[in-house]
């Protein structure tokens, strides 16, 4: 098992498969493109399963490591590996790709091959981000993943797609340029190494630490997105096609959060401690402020987009309270948010495909015509408001416990989400699903078809399984998280 380059497969199967899908060409071959895309997505997922089954939970070291020289002159390596922090995201990403292919099955009729290829390639690139252990390799994947998403929004998006796509691109590009400078600085300081693991051990003075921290903060903070650099996300979500929103929420937002754990905390631990108050403040603003903003949204996608920002606030909060409960809770929250926000966007997509509106006011009484849909949507809305027995509860609960342990008032502010999350999720649900049939569009709705039922049922299973038995998820993380926190506690000065 060990000699199979699993991580390379996880990266290159979707990318090469995507190119193959692209080769089917015009929309005449659309059915073939769809089948091929699904096959590639499934294979891409299957190759990630051994990453979990073969994972050694007792060590914090990198596993499934692949190392070969790429650009010897600058000591740049093709260096891959995963630990307890990243492995679940590779699997989640491969899994979500299947959902996305299924979600775009009938809905996308225009440039099908290109659409499917874009998602597959992006999936491979994002696996690259989660498993890259070389700074340049990471950067290349990080930047390259922008392009498919940019195209997805710009080509298959809504009426205002160009504004949204450019806003998204510029926002994130601005951030990553600062990261590039930081990476080059670290290359110089470390005497010519791009290895992220070497950088973890690199002693640094406080001043450069702070500067590096800020550079990373901007790069990753935009991706997360953290308040106040979050405004690209609602626009991007609203314009993106359903699949784009799903990937954006489920995976792309995690890249930034992952960056904090892989770069900021271990490379500049002293600055992280020094500036933790800043991140905690921004996170709490995200949780509370954005929670209120989500409450008044009239567009369902915007509402879920804001709710995503609020949930991601929990993630960054959990990282910077520096206790295992907080960090693991944040990681659990990231995975759960992948399922739940993905499912929420898919649910909205199901409605949008039928009525072609995302306005809450255009709905009402959907339960009469779509009872099955209503049941799934209820589950996901409840998961979004953190109800126990759903995955949404686990991470929130852990982060709140960790936050109370850190400081009562931080926990107090974080716990406000209990009320706000329920308020915006269920108020939307009430207006869309309950009540009398609002108009003839709703009266004509057809309930889920078997394809839609399938992907919602799979996600529902994940949400419930993780909520009822999170043990297998947290088990993977312990060693790496403990090692990370131990590392952060040791000063580099």
């Amino acid at each position: 098992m060990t000699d199979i380059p699993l991580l390379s497969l996880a990266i290159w199967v979707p990318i090469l498969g995507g190119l193959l899908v692209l080769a089917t060409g015009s929309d005449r071959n659309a059915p073939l493109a769809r089948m091929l895309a699904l096959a590639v997505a499934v294979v891409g997922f299957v190759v990630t399963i051994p990453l979990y089954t073969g994972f050694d939970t007792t060590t914090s070291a990198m596993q499934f490591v692949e190392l070969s020289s790429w650009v010897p002159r600058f000591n740049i390596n093709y260096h891959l590996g995963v630990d307890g922090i990243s492995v679940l995201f590779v699997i989640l990403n491969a899994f979500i790709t299947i959902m996305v292919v299924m979600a775009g099955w009938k809905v996308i009729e225009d440039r099908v091959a290109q659409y499917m290829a874009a998602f597959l390639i992006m999936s491979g690139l994002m696996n690259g981000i989660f498993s890259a252990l070389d700074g340049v390799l990471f950067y290349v994947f990080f930047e390259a993943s922008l392009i498919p998403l940019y195209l997805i929004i710009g080509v298959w998006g809504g009426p205002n797609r160009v504004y949204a796509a450019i806003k998204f691109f510029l926002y994130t590009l601005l951030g990553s340029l600062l990261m590039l400078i930081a990476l080059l600085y670290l290359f110089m300081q470390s005497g010519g190494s791009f290895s992220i693991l070497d950088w973890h051990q690199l002693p640094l003075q406080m001043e450069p630490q702070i500067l590096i921290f800020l550079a990373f903060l901007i790069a990753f903070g935009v991706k997360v997105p953290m308040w106040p650099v979050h405004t690209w996300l609602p626009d991007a979500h609203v314009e993106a096609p359903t699949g784009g929103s799903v990937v954006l929420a489920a995976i792309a937002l995690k890249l930034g959060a992952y960056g904090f754990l892989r770069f900021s905390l271990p490379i500049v631990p002293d600055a992280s401690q020094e500036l933790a108050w800043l991140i905690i403040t921004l996170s709490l603003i995200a949780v509370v402020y954005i929670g209120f903003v989500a409450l008044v949204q009239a567009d369902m996608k915007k509402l879920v987009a804001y709710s995503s920002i609020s949930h991601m606030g929990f993630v960054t909060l959990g990282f910077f309270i520096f206790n295992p409960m907080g960090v693991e809770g944040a990681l659990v929250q990231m995975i759960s948010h992948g399922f739940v926000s993905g499912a929420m966007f898919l649910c909205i997509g199901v409605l949008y495909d039928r009525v072609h509106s995302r306005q809450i006011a255009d709905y009402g009484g959907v339960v009469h015509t779509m009872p099955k849909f209503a049941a799934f949507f209820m589950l996901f809305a409840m998961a979004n408001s953190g109800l126990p027995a759903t995955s949404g509860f686990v991470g929130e609960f852990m982060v709140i416990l960790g936050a109370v342990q850190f400081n009562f008032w931080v926990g107090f502010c974080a716990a406000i989400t209990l009320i706000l999350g329920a308020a915006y999720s269920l108020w939307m649900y009430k207006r869309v699903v309950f009540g009398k049939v609002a108009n003839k569009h709703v009266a004509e709705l057809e309930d889920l078809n078997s394809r839609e039922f399938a992907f919602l049922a799979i996600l529902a299973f994940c949400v419930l399984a993780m909520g009822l038995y999170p043990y297998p998820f947290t088990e993977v993380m312990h060693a790496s998280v403990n090692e990370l926190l131990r590392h952060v506690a040791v000063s580099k000065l």
Partner: protein
Amino acid sequence: MTDMQTLYLLVPLAPLAGAILAGLFGKAIGRTGAHVVTILGVAIALAASVYIYQDVQAGNTFNGTIYTWMVAGGLTFEVGFLIDSLTVMMMLVVTFVSLMVHIYTIGYMAEDPGYQRFFSYISLFTFSMLMLVMSNNFMQLFFGWEAVGLVSYLLIGFWYDRPTAIYANLKAFLVNRVGDFGFLLGIGLIAAYTGSLNYAEVFAQADSLASQEMAVTGWPLITAICICLFIGAMGKSAQVPLHVWLPDSMEGPTPISALIHAATMVTAGIFMVARMSPLFELSDTALSFVLVIGATTALFMGFLGIVQNDIKRVVAYSTLSQLGYMTVALGVSAYSAAVFHLMTHAFFKALLFLGAGSVIIGMHHDQDMRNMGGLWKYMPITWFTSLLGSLALIGFPLFSGFFSKDSIIEAVHASTIPGAGYALFCVMLGVFVTAFYSFRMYFLVFHGKERFGNAHGHHDHHGDHDDEEPSADHHHGLAPGQKPHESPWVVTLPLVLLAIPSVLIGFFTIEPMLFGDWFKDVIFVGDNHVGLKELEANFHGPLAMAIHGLQTAPFWLAMGGVVVAWFFYMVRPDIPAAIQRIFKPIYCLLENKYFFDRFNEIFFAGGARALGKGLWKAGDQALIDGVAVNGTARLVGWVAQMSRLFQTGHLYQYAFVMIIGVFILLTFWFNRG
């Protein structure tokens, strides 16, 4: 896993299996299939509970883990059971009342298209409630806590067509979430300072908690923990000011009002505090807080019961008031009296609710008491069982409610904790109020002139509220000339079966529960608190207590309430109308439920929306997007615009600029040195 453990597991899982079968395969198994599987599930749970009860009585308690849910940050999160006398009593109450409600539902929901769904929900509720009471740790407690809230949400909004119902269920969920907010912080504090979520391990460290202060705020830790936990109880058990959801929850079908919003779920808060007695006993401040909140609820919610015309709402306010009594008992450290009242109340209040439901069936879904009257002739079983339930509620000697309520009043009397004087006043006056509104309802419904079949002339009655008037679409009522009829046996059988414990259970259980060893090792009362000790010294058997009860003030207050109700509503019906006219402002205050709803609607709901809108428009759109993002874009555009001016394409301008440049350069170069 031992046989007993399998049996413990069977208790919650049997109703869960029923719920899953009825919920997911409702179409396949049909209506009969749905009620058969769910009733079977609950019956198994009841039978197993009885067996476990005997086992516990033989001295076999259990505290252990079923499975490890998660391990993180040094904390182990487990799903496990704690089976002791308190748990098993709750299990019996929950499964018994649930079984009665399941049977009753066959009749009550007979014509409803959501029949299977309803059975699935109530079985799911039974599962959740059992998980809550059987838990041995805070995480599972919170699990059950939220799960019962979810089912309550689903059931209040069961008729999702009705705007009032879907308003009420959202309100119920959100208000409960406010309570949960405090509850979760309390659990967080416990986890942070004890490093455990297991009851037994936490209680073992109670003394060390009591000696600590909270970091950051410097508050006494134990008081903060207890008040946070109690805020959770305030939400679930509907204590002022988080009570506002319970009256509105009457929008749900009547069986769930009986099961969830009277007998079981709303008492979860009481149960929780009783379970946490080793913690609460260490903080007098928290106990005083509990006491004052409970006393306020007991009296002031009772007042509201007087002015209601909807039969279910009278019972709902009576539930609020009785929950207040239980909370008072907790506040004076009479935990066992609180749990005792919880139990008796579960029986007689479920009975009253189901009786009200039977009346509603008989009246063809008219809930307005002003359209009733003289029903005793037509519905003899409903009438008689309701009378028994009302007597139990007002605490008539020998009825179950007498023993529990009198014990609470005596315990308040003996207590010296700050607030006890106020509480005594509230609970004493509350006895009169309870008797008055209970028998006002009783006389209006079952006696006096027959007012039904009157083509609904009451609609223009002044002082009616839109939200109280049952919405028009389901408001059938009796046609002129039509007579009410007794309900089918599936409805009356549960009434009879509930009437028996409502009358008898207090007599037989007061001695073991309050003064015996039943709750020994489970409920803890500190030496500095009187609790029930004084009462115990004066207790000479239940019969003596009942006879003594005839000479005490509460009895005469209750009788006074009954007589006044009789006089006002049977003899001189013009008096209440006159009082209403004279004391218009007070009536208005009561009619508007002390304006809690309006305040919440304007201040919290409206405030949150306004704040959200403000942050969105001013923060996100104007400041961040308007100034920062698009401003940057405009700035870049402006700079580009400016620099473009220099590139005019005219050679003479370039030449001119170049000459100036050379001139400046040379000047500086020559003057350098």
